[in-house]
């Protein structure tokens, strides 16, 4: 019996190790490339023979990367805040109120979640140029909000259904004003779901590439993933591999921070909408 459990444990240990290795090796490769000198980049060994911070100091002093990084952060945060606020309102209605058209709303959100983005790029490109939104922050924020909403509505309505709303009534009976009942009782209960949703929506905005390269033309609004491609084009960098890898690592850092601190929440958020429905 003891032998089997030890063997089983080591079996799962091996499985764990394989999973972690497969997940991390491609990321470590990017990290390694980002520390390679321009000549060492042309050496296929996994780790650099000489380590350098040069790629990082290069991109972090160049407006070709700093400005897009700022755009990514700004656009991501604004789109996330708007999407989470609008999605919370709709999700509250779905979870708490009885109204006709609820199924239509949920269906609409599902439809948009599955929408092929390229099908919108052509018409939105034309519309944005006509409205003067092309190559502006709002030219990206608006579609990001629209595509963040289905994700937000699903995740939040699943979370809101779990909240014991009777507590609100109980608080009011105990003499709390409606405002107090909301801020002291409901808001703290709803906050974890909203934080989770905000992380998921922000990650989706942070990750977007197709809209970012389609609706921007300069670093005034180009986001970091879209900007990396332009590192090669006759810029200050001689060999773009190192700088691009460094940029890839920089834009991966926020994701690693989110994953380290909020992994439980992210898993809960990802699965709540899809499985619990």
């Amino acid at each position, binding site marked *: 019996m003891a032998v089997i459990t030890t063997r089983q444990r080591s079996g*799962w240990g091996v*499985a*764990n190790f394989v*999973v*972690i290795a497969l*997940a*991390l090796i*491609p*990321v470590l*490769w*990017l990290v390694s490339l980002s520390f390679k000198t321009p000549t060492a980049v*042309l050496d*296929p*060994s996994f780790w650099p023979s000489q380590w350098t911070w040069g790629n990082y100091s290069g991109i972090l002093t160049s407006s070709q990367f700093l400005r897009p990084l700022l755009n990514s952060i700004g656009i991501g945060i604004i789109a996330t805040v708007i999407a989470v606020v609008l999605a919370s*309102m709709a999700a509250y*209605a*779905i979870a708490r*109120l*009885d109204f*006709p058209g*609820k*199924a239509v*709303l949920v269906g*609409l959100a599902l439809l*948009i979640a*599955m929408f*092929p*983005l*390229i*099908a*919108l*790029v*052509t*018409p*939105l*490109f034309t519309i944005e140029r006509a409205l003067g939104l092309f190559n502006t922050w709002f030219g990206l924020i*608006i579609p990001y909000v*629209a*595509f963040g909403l289905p994700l937000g509505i699903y995740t939040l309505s699943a979370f809101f259904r779990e909240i014991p709303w009777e507590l609100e009534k109980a608080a009011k009976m105990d003499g709390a004003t409606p405002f107090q009942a909301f801020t002291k009782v409901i808001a703290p209960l709803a906050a974890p779901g909203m934080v989770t949703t905000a992380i998921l929506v922000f*990650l989706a905005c942070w*990750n977007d*590439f*197709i809209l970012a390269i*389609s609706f921007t033309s300069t670093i005034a609004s180009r986001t970091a*993933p879209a900007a990396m491609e332009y590192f090669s084009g006759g810029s200050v960098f001689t060999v773009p591999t190192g700088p691009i*890898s460094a*940029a890839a690592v920089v834009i*991966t850092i926020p*994701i690693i921070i989110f*994953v*380290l601190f909020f*992994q439980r929440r*992210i*898993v809960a958020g*990802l*699965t709540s909408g*899809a*499985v*619990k*429905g």
Partner: protein
Amino acid sequence: MSTTTPPVTTTETPAHAKKKPKRQLTEIQKADRRLAFWLCAPAVLVMIAVTGYPLVYAVILSLQKNNLELPSETKFIGFANYAAVLSSSYWWEALWVTVVITVFSVAISLVLGMLLAEVLHRTVFFRGGVRTASLIPYGIVTVAAAYGWQYAWTPSQGYLSAAFNNSAPLTSHVQAIIVIIIAEVWKTTPFMGLLLLAGLSLVPEDLQKAAMVDGATGWQRFTRITLPLMKPAILVALLFRTLDSFRIFDNIFILTSGNNGTGSVSILGYDNLFNALNLGIGSAIAILIFICVAIIAVIFILGFGTAAPGSSTGRR
């Protein structure tokens, strides 16, 4: 409530009780509906403005000769753009590539995702670490990861190319598609695994134990108990992943730019817009992609009986 009230008591109270609560209920219902309307309106408005209206506009554009380089020649030409796309070998090649990448990457990530879900479900030791590590491919910016894959497969530069005799797979049709599939599978398996994990945790442990007592092997337990009980979760995960994979763009754009016949339908649509500046053809491709996605969704939901997530709000 009012029907159980004995009519003997008084003539006043029952009438009062009969009418007022009913009217109050409708008042509350009306207020609920009004509130719900105002709460949902902004979200619905944004979603329709960004998707519904452009979709209609794309249909109109797709029926026009509309080239940004020749704006004066814009005119209605019926279905000529569709005819041009559907009779072009580029469209069918791109569709074939997209289907191949979708089928293989979804199938492989389903199998690997199942294994990942089992590992995450069964492992007790260092569970958080495994989960954290597997969330990184899910969260990483696709483009960032794609650059990593591209460099890894570049001859005399990448460790993977070096491991395979200094080969250059990204310059050959079939091998490039395999690399694209690997990049897709690496990125999407964690999401698949997490969705399946949620389904796996709904499988009662007692059933497994009972089957084990009855002498069922691990494989039998998996195929006879776990799989049937997980079918709804698997179908939802497959639906999500298939539609997502069919839209593949980022990985191909970075890895091959669609060269050597590796372009997906999304790459084709993008090229028609930004390289050929042809809004008419680009919109026709966009609409055709939309139709393909709709067909996939209908097959899953009607054909396989996938419960559309959220459609079963009444279930809980």
